Protein backbone atom coordinates (compact mmCIF):
# COMPACT_ATOMS: atom_id res chain seq x y z
CA UNK A 1 0.00 0.00 0.00
CA UNK A 2 1.49 3.30 -1.05
CA UNK A 3 0.58 6.67 0.41
CA UNK A 4 2.22 9.72 -1.15
CA UNK A 5 5.03 7.65 -2.58
CA UNK A 6 5.98 6.22 0.83
CA UNK A 7 5.30 2.60 1.52
CA UNK A 8 3.70 1.99 4.86
CA UNK A 9 2.46 -1.12 6.49
CA UNK A 10 -1.30 -1.16 6.67
CA UNK A 11 -2.91 -2.32 9.90
CA UNK A 12 -3.87 -5.90 9.19
CA UNK A 13 -7.58 -6.51 9.54
CA UNK A 14 -8.97 -9.65 11.08
CA UNK A 15 -10.27 -10.73 7.67
CA UNK A 16 -6.92 -10.11 6.04
CA UNK A 17 -5.21 -12.11 8.74
CA UNK A 18 -7.60 -14.97 8.16
CA UNK A 19 -6.84 -14.79 4.45
CA UNK A 20 -3.16 -15.04 5.21
CA UNK A 21 -3.79 -18.01 7.46
CA UNK A 22 -5.82 -19.67 4.74
CA UNK A 23 -2.99 -19.14 2.28
CA UNK A 24 -0.63 -20.96 4.54
CA UNK A 25 -3.08 -23.69 5.30
CA UNK A 26 -3.60 -24.27 1.58
CA UNK A 27 0.09 -25.02 1.12
CA UNK A 28 0.27 -27.79 3.60
CA UNK A 29 -3.11 -29.37 3.01
CA UNK A 30 -2.37 -29.80 -0.68
CA UNK A 31 1.11 -30.98 0.08
CA UNK A 32 0.00 -33.80 2.32
CA UNK A 33 -1.41 -35.66 -0.62
CA UNK A 34 1.79 -35.30 -2.63
CA UNK A 35 4.83 -37.44 -2.29
CA UNK A 36 7.79 -35.26 -3.16
CA UNK A 37 8.87 -33.20 -0.19
CA UNK A 38 11.01 -30.90 -2.32
CA UNK A 39 7.88 -29.70 -4.09
CA UNK A 40 6.24 -29.15 -0.75
CA UNK A 41 9.16 -27.18 0.62
CA UNK A 42 9.49 -25.07 -2.54
CA UNK A 43 5.83 -24.19 -2.37
CA UNK A 44 5.91 -23.60 1.37
CA UNK A 45 8.71 -21.06 1.22
CA UNK A 46 7.27 -19.31 -1.84
CA UNK A 47 3.93 -18.90 -0.07
CA UNK A 48 5.54 -17.93 3.21
CA UNK A 49 7.60 -15.28 1.47
CA UNK A 50 4.50 -13.90 -0.24
CA UNK A 51 2.32 -13.96 2.87
CA UNK A 52 4.93 -12.21 4.98
CA UNK A 53 5.98 -9.80 2.20
CA UNK A 54 9.55 -10.95 2.72
CA UNK A 55 12.42 -10.95 0.22
CA UNK A 56 13.91 -14.28 1.11
CA UNK A 57 12.72 -17.50 2.67
CA UNK A 58 14.59 -20.69 3.40
CA UNK A 59 14.18 -24.06 5.06
CA UNK A 60 17.05 -25.91 6.66
CA UNK A 61 16.45 -29.51 7.71
CA UNK A 62 18.30 -31.24 10.51
CA UNK A 63 20.55 -34.12 9.52
CA UNK A 64 20.39 -36.27 12.64
CA UNK A 65 23.60 -38.15 11.99
CA UNK A 66 25.81 -35.06 11.71
CA UNK A 67 23.82 -32.63 13.88
CA UNK A 68 23.95 -30.06 11.09
CA UNK A 69 21.15 -28.02 9.61
CA UNK A 70 21.28 -28.37 5.84
CA UNK A 71 19.82 -25.76 3.51
CA UNK A 72 17.17 -27.70 1.63
CA UNK A 73 14.92 -25.14 -0.05
CA UNK A 74 15.22 -21.37 -0.55
CA UNK A 75 13.51 -18.52 -2.37
CA UNK A 76 15.43 -15.34 -3.11
CA UNK A 77 18.38 -17.11 -1.57
CA UNK A 78 18.95 -20.04 -3.88
CA UNK A 79 22.73 -19.96 -3.31
CA UNK A 80 22.16 -21.41 0.14
CA UNK A 81 20.89 -24.64 -1.33
CA UNK A 82 23.21 -24.73 -4.33
CA UNK A 83 26.29 -24.30 -2.15
CA UNK A 84 25.12 -26.91 0.32
CA UNK A 85 25.15 -24.66 3.37
CA UNK A 86 25.51 -26.59 6.66
CA UNK A 87 25.04 -24.93 10.03
CA UNK A 88 25.96 -26.76 13.26
CA UNK A 89 23.09 -26.79 15.78
CA UNK A 90 23.81 -24.21 18.47
CA UNK A 91 25.79 -21.84 16.25
CA UNK A 92 24.71 -18.82 14.27
CA UNK A 93 21.18 -17.68 13.62
CA UNK A 94 19.55 -20.91 12.46
CA UNK A 95 21.69 -23.03 14.79
CA UNK A 96 20.45 -21.05 17.79
CA UNK A 97 16.81 -21.49 16.79
CA UNK A 98 17.26 -25.25 16.51
CA UNK A 99 19.20 -25.54 19.77
CA UNK A 100 16.83 -23.42 21.84
CA UNK A 101 13.56 -24.46 20.17
CA UNK A 102 12.79 -20.73 20.12
CA UNK A 103 12.14 -18.18 17.42
CA UNK A 104 14.86 -15.61 16.80
CA UNK A 105 14.42 -12.16 15.25
CA UNK A 106 17.48 -10.21 14.11
CA UNK A 107 17.18 -6.61 13.00
CA UNK A 108 20.91 -6.38 12.56
CA UNK A 109 22.55 -8.92 10.26
CA UNK A 110 26.32 -9.29 10.06
CA UNK A 111 29.05 -11.80 10.76
CA UNK A 112 28.60 -11.38 14.52
CA UNK A 113 24.98 -12.53 14.48
CA UNK A 114 24.88 -14.76 11.41
CA UNK A 115 27.29 -17.59 10.63
CA UNK A 116 26.39 -18.04 7.00
CA UNK A 117 28.20 -15.38 4.88
CA UNK A 118 25.67 -15.78 2.06
CA UNK A 119 23.04 -14.07 4.22
CA UNK A 120 24.96 -10.90 4.93
CA UNK A 121 26.75 -10.78 1.57
CA UNK A 122 23.31 -10.81 0.00
CA UNK A 123 22.45 -7.61 1.84
CA UNK A 124 19.79 -9.05 4.14
CA UNK A 125 19.02 -6.47 6.81
CA UNK A 126 16.55 -8.31 9.03
CA UNK A 127 15.88 -11.98 9.69
CA UNK A 128 13.16 -13.90 11.48
CA UNK A 129 13.27 -17.66 11.99
CA UNK A 130 11.30 -20.34 13.81
CA UNK A 131 11.93 -24.01 14.56
CA UNK A 132 10.14 -26.77 12.66
CA UNK A 133 8.98 -29.10 15.41
CA UNK A 134 7.42 -32.52 14.83
CA UNK A 135 6.75 -35.11 17.51
CA UNK A 136 8.39 -32.85 20.10
CA UNK A 137 11.68 -32.78 18.18
CA UNK A 138 13.23 -30.01 16.12
CA UNK A 139 13.49 -31.25 12.54
CA UNK A 140 14.60 -27.98 10.97
CA UNK A 141 14.34 -24.21 10.77
CA UNK A 142 12.21 -21.92 8.59
CA UNK A 143 13.36 -18.33 8.15
CA UNK A 144 12.46 -15.22 6.17
CA UNK A 145 14.59 -12.15 5.47
CA UNK A 146 14.22 -8.58 4.35
CA UNK A 147 16.63 -6.69 2.09
CA UNK A 148 15.40 -3.40 3.53
CA UNK A 149 15.42 -2.45 7.22
CA UNK A 150 12.34 -3.95 8.82
CA UNK A 151 11.07 -4.74 12.28
CA UNK A 152 9.22 -8.01 12.19
CA UNK A 153 6.13 -7.82 14.38
CA UNK A 154 4.63 -10.26 16.82
CA UNK A 155 1.96 -10.98 14.24
CA UNK A 156 4.58 -11.77 11.59
CA UNK A 157 6.16 -14.17 14.01
CA UNK A 158 2.85 -15.81 14.76
CA UNK A 159 2.20 -16.34 11.06
CA UNK A 160 5.65 -17.76 10.47
CA UNK A 161 5.32 -20.13 13.42
CA UNK A 162 1.93 -21.21 12.16
CA UNK A 163 3.36 -21.96 8.71
CA UNK A 164 6.22 -23.84 10.36
CA UNK A 165 3.90 -25.89 12.57
CA UNK A 166 1.70 -26.88 9.66
CA UNK A 167 4.68 -27.69 7.48
CA UNK A 168 6.61 -29.59 10.14
CA UNK A 169 4.07 -32.38 10.39
CA UNK A 170 3.91 -32.76 6.62
CA UNK A 171 7.68 -32.60 6.22
CA UNK A 172 8.26 -35.09 9.04
CA UNK A 173 5.84 -37.59 7.55
CA UNK A 174 7.38 -37.17 4.10
CA UNK A 175 10.88 -37.55 5.49
CA UNK A 176 9.80 -40.66 7.38
CA UNK A 177 8.33 -42.01 4.17
CA UNK A 178 11.56 -41.35 2.27
CA UNK A 179 13.56 -42.95 5.06
CA UNK A 180 11.29 -45.95 5.00
CA UNK A 181 11.68 -46.40 1.25
CA UNK A 182 15.46 -46.04 1.56
CA UNK A 183 15.61 -48.46 4.49
CA UNK A 184 13.56 -51.00 2.59
CA UNK A 185 15.78 -50.69 -0.48
CA UNK A 186 18.87 -51.05 1.70
CA UNK A 187 17.42 -54.00 3.56
CA UNK A 188 16.50 -55.70 0.27
CA UNK A 189 19.94 -55.11 -1.22
CA UNK A 190 21.67 -56.59 1.81
CA UNK A 191 19.75 -59.79 2.37
CA UNK A 192 21.20 -62.45 0.07
CA UNK A 193 18.60 -63.16 -2.62
CA UNK A 194 19.38 -66.87 -2.77
CA UNK A 195 21.42 -68.89 -0.29
CA UNK A 196 24.65 -70.35 -1.70
CA UNK A 197 24.45 -73.89 -2.98
CA UNK A 198 26.53 -76.15 -0.78
CA UNK A 199 26.39 -79.91 -1.21
CA UNK A 200 24.36 -81.42 1.60
CA UNK A 201 23.09 -78.09 2.99
CA UNK A 202 19.46 -77.07 2.70
CA UNK A 203 18.65 -73.49 3.64
CA UNK A 204 15.47 -71.41 3.68
CA UNK A 205 14.94 -67.84 4.89
CA UNK A 206 12.22 -65.34 5.74
CA UNK A 207 12.32 -61.62 6.45
CA UNK A 208 9.27 -59.64 7.54
CA UNK A 209 9.29 -55.91 8.31
CA UNK A 210 7.59 -55.15 11.60
CA UNK A 211 4.27 -53.29 11.17
CA UNK A 212 5.45 -52.10 7.77
CA UNK A 213 8.68 -50.71 9.15
CA UNK A 214 12.04 -52.32 8.47
CA UNK A 215 14.58 -52.39 11.23
CA UNK A 216 18.06 -53.63 11.83
CA UNK A 217 17.47 -57.39 11.59
CA UNK A 218 19.52 -59.37 9.15
CA UNK A 219 20.70 -62.83 8.22
CA UNK A 220 23.63 -63.77 6.05
CA UNK A 221 24.98 -67.01 4.71
CA UNK A 222 28.15 -67.49 2.72
CA UNK A 223 30.83 -70.01 1.84
CA UNK A 224 34.44 -69.42 2.83
CA UNK A 225 37.53 -70.26 0.76
CA UNK A 226 38.27 -73.11 3.20
CA UNK A 227 35.00 -74.77 2.20
CA UNK A 228 33.38 -73.82 5.49
CA UNK A 229 29.88 -72.39 5.56
CA UNK A 230 29.16 -69.22 7.55
CA UNK A 231 25.73 -68.38 8.93
CA UNK A 232 24.95 -65.04 10.58
CA UNK A 233 21.86 -63.70 12.26
CA UNK A 234 21.73 -60.32 13.96
CA UNK A 235 19.60 -57.49 15.21
CA UNK A 236 20.69 -53.86 15.51
CA UNK A 237 18.87 -51.97 18.27
CA UNK A 238 16.61 -49.26 16.91
CA UNK A 239 14.52 -49.10 13.76
CA UNK A 240 14.23 -47.52 10.35
CA UNK A 241 17.00 -46.14 8.22
CA UNK A 242 19.60 -45.52 10.99
CA UNK A 243 19.37 -49.15 12.14
CA UNK A 244 19.42 -50.44 8.55
CA UNK A 245 22.56 -48.41 7.79
CA UNK A 246 24.40 -49.79 10.82
CA UNK A 247 23.20 -53.27 9.95
CA UNK A 248 24.73 -52.88 6.48
CA UNK A 249 28.08 -51.87 7.93
CA UNK A 250 28.07 -54.75 10.42
CA UNK A 251 27.22 -57.25 7.72
CA UNK A 252 30.17 -56.16 5.54
CA UNK A 253 32.55 -56.00 8.47
CA UNK A 254 31.62 -59.46 9.67
CA UNK A 255 32.11 -60.87 6.16
CA UNK A 256 35.56 -59.27 5.97
CA UNK A 257 36.68 -60.71 9.31
CA UNK A 258 35.17 -64.09 8.39
CA UNK A 259 37.74 -64.28 5.59
CA UNK A 260 40.55 -63.68 8.07
CA UNK A 261 39.64 -66.04 10.88
CA UNK A 262 37.89 -69.39 11.11
CA UNK A 263 37.14 -68.82 14.81
CA UNK A 264 33.67 -67.27 15.26
CA UNK A 265 34.68 -65.84 18.67
CA UNK A 266 37.62 -64.05 17.06
CA UNK A 267 35.41 -62.71 14.26
CA UNK A 268 32.84 -61.34 16.72
CA UNK A 269 35.57 -59.88 18.96
CA UNK A 270 37.01 -57.97 15.98
CA UNK A 271 33.55 -56.89 14.88
CA UNK A 272 32.90 -55.64 18.42
CA UNK A 273 36.15 -53.64 18.51
CA UNK A 274 35.42 -52.12 15.10
CA UNK A 275 31.89 -51.14 16.08
CA UNK A 276 32.96 -49.62 19.41
CA UNK A 277 35.52 -47.49 17.65
CA UNK A 278 33.61 -46.41 14.55
CA UNK A 279 29.96 -46.62 15.65
CA UNK A 280 30.02 -45.70 19.33
CA UNK A 281 26.60 -46.01 20.91
CA UNK A 282 25.38 -48.65 18.46
CA UNK A 283 24.27 -51.91 20.01
CA UNK A 284 23.46 -55.20 18.31
CA UNK A 285 22.97 -58.87 19.03
CA UNK A 286 24.80 -61.13 16.59
CA UNK A 287 25.17 -64.87 16.31
CA UNK A 288 27.83 -66.27 14.01
CA UNK A 289 28.10 -69.96 13.20
CA UNK A 290 30.80 -71.69 11.18
CA UNK A 291 30.11 -75.16 9.78
CA UNK A 292 32.93 -77.55 8.87
CA UNK A 293 33.33 -78.36 5.14
CA UNK A 294 31.58 -81.73 5.51
CA UNK A 295 28.78 -80.08 7.56
CA UNK A 296 29.46 -82.53 10.39
CA UNK A 297 30.15 -79.92 13.07
CA UNK A 298 28.94 -76.43 13.84
CA UNK A 299 30.83 -73.81 15.91
CA UNK A 300 28.54 -71.14 17.32
CA UNK A 301 29.37 -67.86 19.05
CA UNK A 302 26.61 -65.59 20.34
CA UNK A 303 26.94 -61.92 21.20
CA UNK A 304 23.72 -61.44 23.15
CA UNK A 305 21.65 -63.28 20.57
CA UNK A 306 19.05 -65.97 21.18
CA UNK A 307 20.46 -69.49 20.75
CA UNK A 308 19.21 -71.44 17.73
CA UNK A 309 16.62 -74.18 18.08
CA UNK A 310 17.96 -77.61 17.10
CA UNK A 311 15.81 -80.51 15.96
CA UNK A 312 16.78 -83.91 14.61
CA UNK A 313 14.76 -86.83 13.29
CA UNK A 314 15.45 -88.65 16.56
CA UNK A 315 14.98 -85.83 19.08
CA UNK A 316 12.39 -83.13 19.63
CA UNK A 317 13.44 -79.52 19.20
CA UNK A 318 15.30 -77.74 21.97
CA UNK A 319 17.38 -74.61 22.44
CA UNK A 320 21.02 -75.21 21.55
CA UNK A 321 23.35 -74.90 24.53
CA UNK A 322 25.28 -71.79 23.50
CA UNK A 323 27.12 -69.75 26.15
CA UNK A 324 25.67 -66.24 26.40
CA UNK A 325 28.01 -63.39 25.46
CA UNK A 326 27.60 -59.64 25.71
CA UNK A 327 25.98 -57.72 22.89
CA UNK A 328 28.20 -56.11 20.27
CA UNK A 329 28.91 -52.50 21.26
CA UNK A 330 28.31 -52.89 25.02
CA UNK A 331 31.77 -52.73 26.64
CA UNK A 332 35.32 -53.21 25.36
CA UNK A 333 36.94 -56.63 25.63
CA UNK A 334 33.87 -58.75 26.33
CA UNK A 335 34.58 -62.46 26.65
CA UNK A 336 33.53 -64.54 23.64
CA UNK A 337 32.97 -68.28 23.88
CA UNK A 338 32.19 -70.89 21.25
CA UNK A 339 29.93 -73.91 21.47
CA UNK A 340 30.80 -76.76 19.13
CA UNK A 341 28.28 -79.49 18.39
CA UNK A 342 27.91 -82.38 15.99
CA UNK A 343 25.35 -82.21 13.20
CA UNK A 344 23.75 -85.55 12.41
CA UNK A 345 22.12 -86.17 9.03
CA UNK A 346 18.69 -84.56 8.91
CA UNK A 347 19.48 -82.27 11.85
CA UNK A 348 17.99 -78.81 11.57
CA UNK A 349 19.05 -75.47 13.10
CA UNK A 350 16.58 -72.61 13.33
CA UNK A 351 18.13 -69.13 13.67
CA UNK A 352 15.80 -66.20 14.38
CA UNK A 353 15.55 -62.68 15.75
CA UNK A 354 13.59 -61.53 18.80
CA UNK A 355 10.67 -60.27 16.71
CA UNK A 356 9.66 -63.89 16.21
CA UNK A 357 9.19 -64.70 19.88
CA UNK A 358 8.79 -61.44 21.84
CA UNK A 359 5.29 -60.14 22.44
CA UNK A 360 4.23 -57.55 24.98
CA UNK A 361 2.38 -59.12 27.85
CA UNK A 362 4.00 -62.52 27.25
CA UNK A 363 7.01 -64.06 28.90
CA UNK A 364 9.95 -64.74 26.63
CA UNK A 365 10.07 -68.31 27.91
CA UNK A 366 6.55 -68.82 26.57
CA UNK A 367 7.62 -67.55 23.16
CA UNK A 368 10.69 -69.82 23.18
CA UNK A 369 8.55 -72.79 24.22
CA UNK A 370 6.12 -72.11 21.38
CA UNK A 371 9.03 -71.92 18.96
CA UNK A 372 10.47 -75.23 20.17
CA UNK A 373 7.04 -76.80 19.73
CA UNK A 374 6.78 -75.54 16.17
CA UNK A 375 10.26 -76.54 14.96
CA UNK A 376 10.53 -79.99 13.40
CA UNK A 377 13.30 -81.66 11.43
CA UNK A 378 11.45 -81.16 8.14
CA UNK A 379 12.65 -79.58 4.88
CA UNK A 380 13.69 -75.97 5.67
CA UNK A 381 11.13 -74.32 3.40
CA UNK A 382 8.34 -76.27 5.08
CA UNK A 383 9.87 -75.59 8.49
CA UNK A 384 9.94 -71.82 7.79
CA UNK A 385 6.27 -71.91 6.81
CA UNK A 386 5.37 -73.95 9.91
CA UNK A 387 7.28 -71.63 12.26
CA UNK A 388 5.88 -68.43 10.76
CA UNK A 389 2.40 -69.91 10.82
CA UNK A 390 2.66 -70.94 14.46
CA UNK A 391 4.34 -67.80 15.83
CA UNK A 392 3.04 -65.03 13.61
CA UNK A 393 -0.14 -66.42 12.04
CA UNK A 394 -2.27 -63.63 10.68
CA UNK A 395 -1.04 -60.93 13.03
CA UNK A 396 1.21 -58.11 11.91
CA UNK A 397 4.46 -58.51 13.81
CA UNK A 398 5.25 -55.40 15.89
CA UNK A 399 9.01 -55.81 15.39
CA UNK A 400 10.82 -57.07 12.31
CA UNK A 401 11.58 -60.78 12.00
CA UNK A 402 14.48 -62.56 10.36
CA UNK A 403 14.43 -66.35 10.18
CA UNK A 404 17.02 -68.70 8.71
CA UNK A 405 16.66 -72.46 8.82
CA UNK A 406 19.49 -74.81 7.91
CA UNK A 407 19.20 -78.57 7.59
CA UNK A 408 21.87 -81.13 6.84
CA UNK A 409 20.44 -83.35 4.16
CA UNK A 410 19.04 -86.59 5.64
Amino acid at each position, binding site marked *: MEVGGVEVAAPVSRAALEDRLRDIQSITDAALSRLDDHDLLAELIERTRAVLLADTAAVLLLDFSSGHLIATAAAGLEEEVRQGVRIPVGRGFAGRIAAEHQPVILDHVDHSTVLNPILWAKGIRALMGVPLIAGGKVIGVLHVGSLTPREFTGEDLELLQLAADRAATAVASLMAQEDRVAAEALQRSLLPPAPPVVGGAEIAVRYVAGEGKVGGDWYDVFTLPSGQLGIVIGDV*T*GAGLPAAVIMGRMRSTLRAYALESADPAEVLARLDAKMQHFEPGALATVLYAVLDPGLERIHICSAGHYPPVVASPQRPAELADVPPGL*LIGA*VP*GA*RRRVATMRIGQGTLFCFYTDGLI*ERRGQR*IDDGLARLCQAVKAEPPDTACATVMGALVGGEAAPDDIALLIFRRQP
Partner: protein
Amino acid sequence: MTAEGGGLRWMGEQAVVTAPAEIDAANAGEIRQALLAAASHDAAVLIIDMSATTFCDSAGVQAIIDTYNQAAATQTQLRLVATAVLRILTLVGVDQLTPIYPTLEAALAGAPTAAASVPDPDDPR
Protein backbone atom coordinates in the same frame (compact mmCIF):
# COMPACT_ATOMS: atom_id res chain seq x y z
CA MET B 1 9.41 -42.88 36.02
CA THR B 2 11.24 -39.58 36.32
CA ALA B 3 14.76 -38.77 37.37
CA GLU B 4 13.95 -36.53 40.30
CA GLY B 5 10.42 -37.67 41.03
CA GLY B 6 9.07 -40.90 42.48
CA GLY B 7 11.37 -43.02 40.28
CA LEU B 8 14.58 -42.28 42.17
CA ARG B 9 14.82 -42.79 45.91
CA TRP B 10 17.71 -43.01 48.30
CA MET B 11 18.40 -45.73 50.86
CA GLY B 12 21.44 -44.28 52.59
CA GLU B 13 24.16 -44.00 49.96
CA GLN B 14 22.34 -46.34 47.64
CA ALA B 15 20.14 -44.90 44.92
CA VAL B 16 17.22 -47.02 43.74
CA VAL B 17 15.33 -46.51 40.49
CA THR B 18 12.15 -48.50 40.00
CA ALA B 19 11.54 -49.63 36.42
CA PRO B 20 8.02 -49.91 34.98
CA ALA B 21 6.22 -53.15 34.07
CA GLU B 22 7.13 -52.99 30.39
CA ILE B 23 10.11 -51.42 28.69
CA ASP B 24 10.25 -51.09 24.92
CA ALA B 25 11.07 -48.53 22.25
CA ALA B 26 8.06 -46.44 23.31
CA ASN B 27 9.36 -45.61 26.79
CA ALA B 28 13.02 -46.70 26.78
CA GLY B 29 14.29 -43.21 25.87
CA GLU B 30 12.65 -41.67 28.89
CA ILE B 31 13.85 -44.48 31.17
CA ARG B 32 17.37 -44.15 29.80
CA GLN B 33 17.39 -40.42 30.62
CA ALA B 34 16.17 -41.10 34.15
CA LEU B 35 18.77 -43.84 34.66
CA LEU B 36 21.62 -41.74 33.27
CA ALA B 37 20.60 -38.87 35.54
CA ALA B 38 20.51 -41.24 38.52
CA ALA B 39 23.93 -42.63 37.56
CA SER B 40 25.48 -39.17 37.55
CA HIS B 41 24.64 -38.47 41.22
CA ASP B 42 27.89 -40.00 42.52
CA ALA B 43 25.97 -42.59 44.49
CA ALA B 44 28.09 -45.45 45.86
CA VAL B 45 25.56 -47.91 44.48
CA LEU B 46 22.79 -47.56 41.93
CA ILE B 47 20.12 -50.24 41.92
CA ILE B 48 17.72 -50.66 39.01
CA ASP B 49 14.74 -52.40 40.52
CA MET B 50 13.11 -54.38 37.73
CA SER B 51 11.21 -56.73 40.03
CA ALA B 52 7.90 -55.46 38.60
CA THR B 53 9.19 -55.57 35.02
CA THR B 54 7.74 -58.35 32.91
CA PHE B 55 8.84 -57.20 29.44
CA CYS B 56 12.12 -55.65 28.38
CA ASP B 57 13.17 -55.55 24.75
CA SER B 58 16.47 -54.51 23.16
CA ALA B 59 15.73 -50.80 23.68
CA GLY B 60 15.49 -51.50 27.42
CA VAL B 61 18.73 -53.47 27.33
CA GLN B 62 20.39 -50.52 25.62
CA ALA B 63 19.22 -48.22 28.43
CA ILE B 64 20.77 -50.57 31.02
CA ILE B 65 24.08 -50.86 29.16
CA ASP B 66 24.34 -47.09 28.71
CA THR B 67 23.64 -46.72 32.43
CA TYR B 68 26.33 -49.29 33.22
CA ASN B 69 28.89 -47.32 31.20
CA GLN B 70 27.85 -44.03 32.80
CA ALA B 71 27.98 -45.56 36.30
CA ALA B 72 31.42 -47.03 35.59
CA ALA B 73 32.65 -43.56 34.65
CA THR B 74 31.52 -42.12 38.01
CA GLN B 75 32.70 -45.14 40.05
CA THR B 76 29.12 -46.01 40.89
CA GLN B 77 28.45 -49.71 41.33
CA LEU B 78 25.40 -50.86 39.39
CA ARG B 79 23.13 -53.66 40.65
CA LEU B 80 19.96 -55.04 39.15
CA VAL B 81 16.90 -56.68 40.59
CA ALA B 82 15.05 -58.91 38.11
CA THR B 83 12.94 -62.04 38.03
CA ALA B 84 10.68 -62.17 34.98
CA VAL B 85 13.25 -60.48 32.72
CA LEU B 86 16.22 -62.33 34.20
CA ARG B 87 16.39 -64.62 31.19
CA ILE B 88 16.71 -61.86 28.62
CA LEU B 89 19.27 -60.00 30.75
CA THR B 90 21.35 -63.17 31.07
CA LEU B 91 21.00 -63.91 27.38
CA VAL B 92 22.43 -60.57 26.34
CA GLY B 93 25.21 -60.88 28.91
CA VAL B 94 24.14 -58.09 31.26
CA ASP B 95 24.82 -60.45 34.19
CA GLN B 96 28.48 -60.44 33.11
CA LEU B 97 28.59 -56.69 33.77
CA THR B 98 26.55 -56.29 36.90
CA PRO B 99 25.16 -58.58 39.59
CA ILE B 100 21.46 -59.43 39.29
CA TYR B 101 19.51 -60.13 42.49
CA PRO B 102 16.12 -61.77 42.97
CA THR B 103 14.88 -59.15 45.47
CA LEU B 104 15.54 -55.52 46.33
CA GLU B 105 16.56 -56.56 49.87
CA ALA B 106 19.25 -58.83 48.46
CA ALA B 107 20.46 -56.07 46.15
CA LEU B 108 20.66 -53.60 49.04
CA ALA B 109 22.62 -56.14 51.09
CA GLY B 110 24.86 -56.64 48.07
CA ALA B 111 26.05 -60.20 48.64
CA PRO B 112 28.14 -61.64 45.81
CA THR B 113 26.09 -63.40 43.13
CA ALA B 114 26.95 -66.55 41.25
CA ALA B 115 27.64 -64.77 37.98
CA ALA B 116 31.00 -63.11 37.59
CA SER B 117 30.47 -59.36 37.65
CA VAL B 118 33.50 -58.54 35.55
CA PRO B 119 34.55 -60.33 32.35
CA ASP B 120 37.83 -62.12 32.98
CA PRO B 121 39.93 -62.36 29.82
CA ASP B 122 42.04 -65.15 31.34
CA ASP B 123 39.05 -67.29 32.17
CA PRO B 124 39.50 -70.39 30.00
CA ARG B 125 35.74 -70.99 29.72
